[in-house]
């Protein structure tokens, strides 16, 4: 009988390093994912290297040269204060990406925790938590963000906070719905069966498995966070001037849309590129994040 217990050889043993490289290769072979990642890395590079890349200071006004059309000195022209659009776009990448990242980080952290606890605990805890969440969810998110910024004054931190608070209930709702699909999965019961405590099950098994779909949702909401900041800027409640953000470049350019369309158009394009990259990344992650979901390589590009 021991013959049947003989070690099996189905897949050849792969050294760890090569396995990692193989996995990485799989991610990078996903065209959407790699394109999205590439664009985001590029944008992050631009954001980080802004002081060296930008030809002018982002807040340097040159009132002798307002609303200049593109020229050698001002590649994309200047705005109504004579500030160089290109430099503002480059510096704006910092704030806009920071907003996006911070919103994602905050709403992901709190949203996942709330959603996971509610979803995993079940019972009255879930009901009360989700009741509260539903209440927040029923608020028009943008209005909620507006009210919060109005309440706390407009600053980068408050914009981030407000948009995060507006998004957290969404993440929480998604998280919970994912968690309640994970909760009945046998490996959760199996973990309890080996004597694991609930908190440990939550942290070790529920959260790691629930995160991928939630991360995908949040990459998309990162895009909306950038737009929300733009909307707040438009209503005069965005990040404090003269800080450059793509949002306030758009709203600054709003008034000059006929004479100097490049101002708002270029910022809009920056947002669009980022949003598209984030979406590609999100979809790509969805396709490749689960190790067992190899079947979609490349075929679902968008």
């Amino acid at each position: 009988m021991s013959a049947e217990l003989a070690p099996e050889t189905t897949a050849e043993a792969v050294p760890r390093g090569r396995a990692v490289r193989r996995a990485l290769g799989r991610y990078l072979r996903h065209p959407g994912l790699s394109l999205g990642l590439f664009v985001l890395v590029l944008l992050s590079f631009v954001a980080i290297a802004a002081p060296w890349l930008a030809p002018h200071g982002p807040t340097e006004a040159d009132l002798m040269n307002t609303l200049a059309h593109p020229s050698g000195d001002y590649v994309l022209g200047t705005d109504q204060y004579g500030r160089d659009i290109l430099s503002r776009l480059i510096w704006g990448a910092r704030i806009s990406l920071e907003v996006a990242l911070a919103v994602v980080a905050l709403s992901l952290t709190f949203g996942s925790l709330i959603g996971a606890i509610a979803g995993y605990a079940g019972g009255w805890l879930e009901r009360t938590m989700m009741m509260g969440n539903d209440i927040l969810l029923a608020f028009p998110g943008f209005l909620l963000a507006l009210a919060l910024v109005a309440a706390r004054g407009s600053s980068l931190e408050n914009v981030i906070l407000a948009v995060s608070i507006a998004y957290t209930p969404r993440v929480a709702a998604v998280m919970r719905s994912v968690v309640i699909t994970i909760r009945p999965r046998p490996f959760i019961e199996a973990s309890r069966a080996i004597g694991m405590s609930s908190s440990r099950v939550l942290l070790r098994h529920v959260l790691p498995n629930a995160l991928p779909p939630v991360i995908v949702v949040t990459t998309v909401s990162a895009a909306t966070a950038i737009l929300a900041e733009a909307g707040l800027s438009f209503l005069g409640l965005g990040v404090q001037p003269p800080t450059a953000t793509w949002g306030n470049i758009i709203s600054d350019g709003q008034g000059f849309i006929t004479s100097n369309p490049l101002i708002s158009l270029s910022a809009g394009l920056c947002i669009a590129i980022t949003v598209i990259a984030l979406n590609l990344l999100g979809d790509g992650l969805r396709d490749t994040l689960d190790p067992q979901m190899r079947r979609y390589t490349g075929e679902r590009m968008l």
Partner: protein
Amino acid sequence: AELRVRIGSDVGNLDPARIFGIENQTVASHVYNGLVKYDQATNKILPDLAESWSVSEDGTAYTFKLRDGVMFHKGYGQLTSDDVKFSLERVLNPDTKSRYAGQLAGVKGVEAPDPLTVRVVLEAPNAGLLNKLTDFNQGWIASRKAVTEIGDKQYAMQPVGTGPFVFDKWSPGNQVRVVANKDYFGGAPSLDAVTFRIIKDETAAAIALENGEIDVFFALQSPPVIDRLKKADGVTVMNRVANHTINLVLNQTVKPLDDIRVRKAIAYGINREALIAGYFKGTKAPGHSVITSSFPEYTEEVPQYAHDPEKAKALLKEAGQEGFELELITVGLSPYNELVIPMASDLEKVGIKTKITVLERGAYLQARGKGDIMTCITGIVGPPDPDSPLVSLYATKSFPPGMNTSRYDKADDLLASASAEQDPAKRTAIYQQVMSQTMEDVPVLPLYADQLFMAHSSKVKGLVQNSLFTVQAYTVSLEE
């Protein structure tokens, strides 16, 4: 015919004792009259509800003879001296919590000896009293009967006056409509009605004007839109220097702004010429002092601070304040929150670190009320009454409450003597002395004199622009 006028934001309170904001004031000016009024073009004071008036010898009593047969709208009866007494006393009554009680501060009492005679008695002579009684804010006369019957609070959006138009309907967020008062004592207006459409975005408003969706574009500010409309067919753009400047107020109680060298450095450091030319594209006029050229008292003989970065740096160095941080605080309204941007950039260039703080109006008022904010940007919008900006900005009694956020305290005596001076020429001289002194001390730096723009389609005839921030449709007719 119905005139459609763009206003930039919604109305909310048309009660003369509490009214605030140019949209409200514009609508109210169609509904109400004052005892006297400014000539729209020349700012001379003319009779309105009062046919004539006289001043007592000592200058402490003003007697007004009312026009006979003036009727309030909506059947609230004839205007009597009692209504005038009621309106003015209402502003003075602390229970009303009028924001204009201060304007009538020196009034000891209002008497109504007979239905058509009103006497305003002052504590001390005040040569500027007539300015306070013109048809604006506290000067508007309401009906005692109407306010009492409608209710003190509800009256805010159900105004009853004697003006050329009768308040008709307010659709929140959308529009306000007034209809012609056929029985207006000055003769029925040629228009049947005026609709004030709320259109926030200036570009959209400009297109609406070009498309013929509106007739008058009121409160036109944005330089590119002005430019666009100037080029548009069938559109006339009008402009006029306003009664106010937009100022940077420097709080002398906050270090290092207590140092006059620092304040002067700031004045030299900001390129106001470029601000007007570059940012406003010449749509504003230079502000030499807080009194604009629309005032008879206007003068340019005051200390000037042409842009001079080197001098600014030198002054800072002298004061030992290179690299201090200046917080520019402003309310989140255009253009205040915009013009600070090039200012900050200029100041950075002379070595002043600047931080811009834009506050939403409620928070701004609260911050300014505390009196410890470093700077603010403000303009005193009002009638061409020199007291209005000078007292508001420089008198110690004007804080708290009030606008003297710089906490300037060296003009009180001059302002008091101007008030007491009955001779207009001498008074003007005193005011000019105030201007010189304050421009030397620069607690307040006028950035520019505001210029009011308005555009209308060629169908609109007879529109006259005043230097107040309002529009008046009474004289207007529409050509089909």
